[in-house]
């Protein structure tokens, strides 16, 4: 009898405990589901056109190539090479994302053939004058955020995410997942350090690759405070390149920029 009471009490306690944590746990679970749904892409290469628009509507463009290698024990590796404007052609970055701690990043300057290890602690700064911060473009690892489930609207699930790194430019971001489409992200709303709405990123033109991997064809970032916009237009997604670790070394970085 006494034993039963203890068990019943313990059960009740666990139930309360799980209710109390459910928003955080549910948020984390959704983020994990989204990550799991995209597992096994191996490696990709993609061409990227970045269209920058200032508040007067003036437009400038740049072209990049991005190579990504999926890793499970630690974060992904990526190699980005600029194709235009021509004065920065060949400038490339190699990034080793880490699930915990700061990423390793190297910059290649083709004019003097120099590889320079750079600080990855500047996450909140703009990437090449765009409305994308470095942290928006780096590999999204589960461990880099804490989570809170908000609500479900039909197929759409909203989860609030809080960056772990104090150097992030955001207090939080609200991610809209589409659970009917492999938990792909439809929208992200970013709030600055003062907790005011800063930017909205919309993902459109989705295509399904290898029957499993959803990739958006267009990322559209609107800055509500400056009224500037940046569109990323992806083309020639290639999941068959079979890249390996040797394609993500300092030698590979130099080759990609030459």
């Amino acid at each position: 009898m006494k034993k039963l009471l203890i068990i019943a009490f313990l059960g009740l306690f666990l139930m309360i405990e799980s209710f109390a944590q459910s928003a955080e746990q549910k948020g984390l679970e959704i983020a994990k589901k989204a990550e799991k749904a995209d597992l096994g892409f191996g490696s990709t290469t993609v061409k990227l056109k970045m269209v920058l628009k200032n508040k007067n509507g003036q437009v400038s463009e740049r072209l990049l190539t991005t190579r990504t290698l999926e890793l499970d024990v630690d974060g992904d590796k990526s190699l980005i090479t600029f194709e235009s404007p021509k004065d920065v052609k060949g400038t490339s970055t190699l990034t080793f994302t880490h699930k915990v701690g700061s990423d390793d990043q190297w910059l290649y300057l083709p004019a003097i053939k120099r590889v320079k290890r750079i600080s990855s602690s500047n996450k909140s700064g703009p990437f090449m004058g765009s409305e994308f911060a470095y942290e928006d473009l780096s590999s999204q690892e589960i461990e880099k955020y804490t989570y809170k489930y908000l609500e479900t609207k039909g197929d759409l699930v909203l989860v609030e995410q809080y960056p772990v790194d104090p150097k992030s430019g955001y207090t939080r971001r609200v991610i809209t997942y589409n659970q009917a489409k492999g938990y792909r992200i439809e929208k992200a709303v970013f709030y600055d350090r003062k907790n005011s709405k800063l930017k909205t990123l919309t993902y459109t033109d989705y295509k399904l690759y290898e029957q499993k991997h959803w990739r958006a064809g267009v990322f559209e970032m609107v800055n509500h405070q400056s009224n500037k916009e940046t569109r990323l237009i992806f083309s020639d997604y290639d999941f068959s390149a079979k890249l390996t670790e040797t394609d993500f070394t300092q030698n590979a970085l130099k080759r990609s920029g030459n």
Partner: protein
Amino acid sequence: MKYFIFALLFLPFFVQAQDKKAEHDFELELEGEYRYFFSDGQFDHQDKHYPSLALRPKYSVTWNEGEDAFHFKGFFRWDKDIKRTHGDIRELYYQKAKNQWELSVGIKKIYWGVTESNHLVDIINTTDLVESFDGEKKFGQPMVHFSYMTNHIGTFDFFYLPYFRKQIFPGEKARLRYSIIIEDDAIPFESSQETAHQDFAVRWSNSISIFDIGLSYFKGTGREPFFNSDGEGNLVVIYPINSQTGLDVQATTGPVLWKVETIMRNNTFQEMRAFTGGLEYTLGNVGNSGMDIGLLAEYSYDNRGDWALNALQDDLFAGGRFAFNDINSSEVLIGAMMDLEKSSKIYSIEASRRIKNSLKIELEGRFFSNIDPKELILSNFKEDSFLRFTVFKYF
């Protein structure tokens, strides 16, 4: 050598026939430069205004899914100074890359090192002295370069350097020259093989957590001549056979980069030791403006003292780099090089900005201040403060 270069030139045509999926890329860079020197020169025939024009054609082809590549980069400059009017093959090489190794054959440029104000360990290519003040422009170096990346113990690079490129010293009409005109071909060599002396170099490099480490050894013709006085007031200039060990280390700790470069150079005439070390601290996205400010401080020591050709024998460099991260990639670097033993100071500014998609402008200023009359090298440049304005057009 010449036949080999000739053969390499035909390689792209061969590729064309072999691989229809080969990616060709041709580019041309046109540069208009104007240098203005504030004061009259201290030597005869020197001028104040120096307009100049440079051309940089570039061609690359990669094939076999990027495993094979051929690169060419040419250079030619017209200038008032007949010695600065010069051309060079900066790059002309074939490269094969497969998994963990990479082989390059031809003329190539290599960069080693981590510090900003002085480049001690960077030894493979001869500096193109007349081209730039900071010594970051180099002549193409003929080589066979083999690179092997191990899984856990870093990368090993081996260099066979069959031919040496002599330095070009400024001519009579040039600013930033010595009181005497150095005839490039008149400088003797320690080795009877002269420019054909066979040189070798090896480098090990690795990235271990926060550290990036490079250890290098070079045996061959010195990339700069040895200068000294024979004790009777006569200048001794000779290209020695050097053996040089170099070490460069960078530690990346959050926003701070800690950097050290040091070399030991031994030859018949000297035992040279030099060191540069310091830090770079980056304040990212200052006040949410998007601008990054990098603060630089580096100390340089050279046991050649007054005979250190870069005049960095006991000097402190302090500077700031402003990267605006705007659409036009605007950047400004200001700095001061201060001699800790003498009054000599050099202030500098370098700024650049894109104005159109294929047009970029650059501004460089060097200001020599309180140059000590005892300075053997810098005293020649004491009237040579200048502003350089450059426009780059890309085709």
